[in-house]
């Protein structure tokens, strides 16, 4: 049941988007943050074989089944998280990058992130003035159960604050910002540790960027339908 083959015909020179029929799992092992349970990971492998050629390309990724929810608590103003339906008390740390000269090795990421897990943390917040972290960072957060709060690149440098006063309208090229944001989401979106995208550090991005981010990152209508039309037993990814 966890192995599926589909026939696809692709015109010459074409780019096509293909959605597999959904694959059913009965009680899969869930991915839990550090301290709440195991970080169960499945290996998803996709291959494409072409007639008269053989295997043309392959891709694989560790995937964890987990559902992350959060909302702003009206009483405290704080953000509350649930993972797989269970409330979680966030013990987080701020993160900028592993090395100011960007010598970002797997070995270094592994040591840094394991250290955070050993400190009993369950979340790392990637500050908006630093990096969109790399897949290797997320890989080890998947392995060690660190949820990631990833901010886009908006800080006091781009909001009209500071002395001298910064540009009040964000980066000069808003289209470039959005291109980078979309590409970054595609790079990182399959990691179970990725818990939350945030527009920037301690503020709201310029109106057009904020609006575009919210639109692009909203749930696909297919999954929205579970909310509006599903039975009470159905839950949302």
């Amino acid at each position, binding site marked *: 049941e966890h192995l599926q083959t589909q026939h696809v015909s*692709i015109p010459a020179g074409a780019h096509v988007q293909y959605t597999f029929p*959904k694959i059913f799992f009965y009680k899969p092992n869930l991915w839990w943050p550090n301290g709440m349970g195991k970080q169960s990971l499945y290996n998803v492998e996709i291959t494409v074989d072409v007639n008269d050629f053989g295997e043309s390309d392959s891709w694989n990724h560790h995937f964890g089944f987990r559902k992350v929810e959060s909302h702003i608590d009206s009483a405290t103003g704080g953000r509350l998280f649930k993972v797989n339906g269970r409330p979680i008390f966030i013990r987080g740390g701020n993160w900028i990058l592993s090395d100011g000269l960007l010598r970002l090795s797997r070995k270094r990421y592994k040591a840094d992130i394991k250290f955070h897990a050993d400190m009993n943390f369950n979340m790392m917040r990637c500050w908006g003035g630093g990096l969109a972290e790399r897949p290797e960072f997320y890989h080890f957060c998947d392995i060690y159960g660190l949820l990631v709060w990833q901010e886009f690149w908006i800080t006091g440098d781009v909001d009209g604050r*500071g002395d001298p006063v910064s540009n009040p309208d964000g980066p000069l090229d808003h289209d*470039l910002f959005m291109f980078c944001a979309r590409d970054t989401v595609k790079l990182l979106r399959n990691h179970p540790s990725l818990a939350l995208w945030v527009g920037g550090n301690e503020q709201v991005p310029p109106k057009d960027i904020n609006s575009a981010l919210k639109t692009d990152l909203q749930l696909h209508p297919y999954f929205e339908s579970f909310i509006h039309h599903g039975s009470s037993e159905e839950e949302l990814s």
Partner: protein
Amino acid sequence: MAEVIGKRILNKGWLAARSSEVEFTGIQLTTTNPPPSAPTSPWMEAVVPGTVLATLVSNKLVPDPFYGLKNEAILDIADSGREYYTFWFFTTFECKLSNNQHVDLNFRAINYSAEVYLNGHKEVLPKGMFRRHSIDVTSILHPDGKNLLAVLVYPPDHPGSIPPEGGQGGDHEIGKDVATQYVEGWDWMAPIRDRNTGIWDEVALSVTGPVKIVDPHLVSSFFDNYKRVYLHTTVKLVNKSNLVAECSLNIQVGTELDENLRSV
């Protein structure tokens, strides 16, 4: 022997040189006048992935900025000008394709923009620190020999300057670019002199057949208190050939048991 389908990382054998000290163009560097394989000035061994400053530190041309106050001894880009931290990076690689194989040259991130030269062919990589670049180089590769790759990397457009008293984000100019902003210094960090200019993430070749898989998307949905779970998978497929491709598209989900064992 033909290339194996898959990814090959190019992280070894890179050289670097300050652009103002190189007399050749990118076309010349990747055809008639490559740097010597044993680097002589102005060429030096480069740290890729890494920044220009990482390469300079590695070659002991500047002190390590993270020891004591040694960062003060490194020239800031505001004082030197952008050209001082504009660097060539150079490497060679072998890649022999069989019939109907294709190869992309992938940069997972460059800060801030670049010109890529491969065997005398030029490609301009647009601005932006947080974007991937993928170039189909199938028709550019030398079929039987060594391929020469040179990358001219430019710093951010607005590296800014650091006020004498330091402060949060220097003069904030870096925020005009889509780049990391701590590099002008912050309350917890001294300014990074090259503003993290460089090929700062993975460089790789990806060899495929006629059809390539791009950016799969995995999503799960949960029902009945997590008893019933579905995996939803979408992929983009690119047919690089000039014929219709009849494909078998396979997805397999297994449980990792150990390094090389899995159950299906």
